[in-house]
């Protein structure tokens, strides 16, 4: 090791914080390098002073008793039990399952299985076709709730299926991209 790499370890070596091999390598270098040894020695002496200053002040029995009494006064009854993990997990799982179900139902309602474009009747109005072919933008400014729109779409989907809706041509997109604009 050269002086540059040794100097990066001197501060730790001076505090006894290097492990066996590193400490041995640094110690071997210090035997032959006066500059590094001087730096190590100064740091080691300084750390000795710092550590010795750690408990310069004595604590009396009165201070100890005061602290212990303060703690015991703050304790009322046994320690509170840990929060029950199982009910929490069950609740979280339930919510996750409900969310997934809702997304799945919504997806099925918005994206028909046969790929035909959805033509909503009312109350929503179709504003324009989006940039992608078959993309529709539905205006909800009339304040119709999401549930009724989805019901409408589901009803229309059902109707199309009963009528045996238009077959998909190769040029048509597989499913129309439906963008719903919410206000």
């Amino acid at each position, binding site marked *: 090791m050269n002086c540059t790499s040794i100097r*990066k*370890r001197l*501060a*730790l070596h*001076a*505090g*006894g*914080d290097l492990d066996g091999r590193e400490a041995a390598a640094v*110690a071997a270098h*210090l*035997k*032959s390098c*006066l500059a590094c*040894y001087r730096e*190590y020695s*100064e*740091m*080691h002496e*300084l*750390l*000795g*002073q*710092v*550590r*010795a*200053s*750690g*408990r*310069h*002040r*004595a*604590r*009396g029995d009165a*201070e*100890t008793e*005061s*602290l*212990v009494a*303060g*703690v*015991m006064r*703050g*304790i009322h009854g*046994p*320690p*509170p*039990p*840990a929060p029950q993990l199982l009910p929490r997990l069950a609740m979280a799982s339930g919510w996750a399952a409900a969310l997934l179900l809702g997304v799945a139902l919504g997806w099925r309602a918005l994206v028909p299985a046969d790929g035909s474009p959805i033509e909503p009747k009312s109350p929503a109005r179709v504003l324009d076709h989006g940039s992608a072919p078959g993309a529709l933008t539905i205006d909800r400014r009339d304040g119709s709730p999401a549930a009724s729109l989805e019901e409408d779409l589901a009803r229309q989907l059902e109707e199309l299926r009963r009528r045996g809706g238009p077959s998909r041509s190769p040029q048509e997109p597989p499913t129309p991209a439906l963008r719903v604009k919410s206000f």
Partner: protein
Amino acid sequence: MRTGALPLTRSPRADGPRAEDVADSRLVERTLAGDAEAFEALVRRYEERAWWAAYHLLGDAEEARDIAQEAFLRAYKALARFDFGMSFYTWLYRIVVNLSIDAMRKRGRLKPVALDDLAGGLAAPGGEPQPGERIESEETAARVREVLGKLPEKYRTVMTLRELDGLSCKEIASIVRSTHATVRWRLHIARRMFKEHWDRMERAARHEGLSQSGRLRRAEDRAPQP
């Protein structure tokens, strides 16, 4: 050229479960079963270390007592969640350090140690120190605290826990929830920064001392001769 390790006041703790940890687990179990005296035994076992940890970080005896007290109360309330694979000592220390850091942030800076605080308390165990020695150690302690206060918080915390509380780098890593390598790196930086500030202070003190003695000499020269 002598390069053997110079005697240090503290050595890193050995790894592996200590007899203390096993005994602590039993006390925690008894506390959870409703035995308040078991918790009091834990408090008595660690109150001094908790107090010193807070004191080293905050520099105020009263505040250190409040922090140590609060740490024990929080430990009690969270005892049902205690991880028996961990040492109670390390867990408690983590609470003390976090509370102390919060207090430091609220205060904005490290409070310098008041001389009254340094001189207070009963005699140190092992006999009464000589007056000269006590004053010198108090001054050194005050200077150490002043220089520690100049370090950024993460470096100050690591250096305080290592040098003043005698914790190993692994214990510190567990307390501050960092890696061993990060703690070592911070300790390396902290020591170098500490030494720079310390050397600067010493140079300034020497310069002031020289200036003062120079002023005294000039005043004596000007004083009328009897």
